[in-house]
């Protein structure tokens, strides 16, 4: 009985990077600097938050201010990239995707 307990593999979550490890091969949401967001499937990461994402969709949000009415127009540009390496110094946060639709 003691042997059975030792043979069960345990995944311990000790530090924040372990939480990212739980998201491997899952779709994730990445908030990046310069008002960019990424959604994709996480295949690899390291302690710098460098990442490889497949089927990635990048969303860039821009604000245009009308000179006369001073209204703020928020626009988003999206593009899809089948396989993407992301350098970690641009990453702000990583999370499971937020399903809004």
């Amino acid at each position: 009985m003691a042997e059975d307990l030792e043979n069960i593999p345990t995944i311990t979550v000790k530090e924040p990077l372990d939480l990212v490890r739980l998201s491997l091969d899952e779709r994730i949401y990445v908030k990046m600097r310069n008002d960019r967001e990424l959604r994709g499937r996480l295949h690899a990461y390291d302690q710098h938050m460098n990442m490889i994402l497949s089927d990635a969709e990048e969303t860039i949000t821009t604000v245009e201010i009308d000179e006369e009415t001073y209204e703020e127009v928020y626009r988003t540009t999206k593009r899809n990239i089948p396989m993407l390496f992301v350098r970690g110094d641009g990453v702000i946060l990583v999370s499971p995707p937020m399903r809004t639709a």
Partner: protein
Amino acid sequence: MLFYSFFKSLVGKDVVVELKNDLSICGTLHSVDQYLNIKLTDISVTDTEKYPHMLKNCFIRGSVVRYVQLPADEVDTQLLQDSARKESSAPTR
């Protein structure tokens, strides 16, 4: 060292490097180092021509890279995931 090894396995493949200054350079990956500095050969600009005259080759400092677009068929996702799992349990800091 995970991504260093990963990029070494992609030497000779065509990639698109997007820099933090929004320049996108398409080229063949010639070499990479531990800082993920990149050397590309036979480069061409993708998107628009906001582009200083460049020759055939370039060296890109790793810290100015935002993204590297990779050919999906050349990437072994299973191997990557296994390496990432191992990397986090035994970090080579």
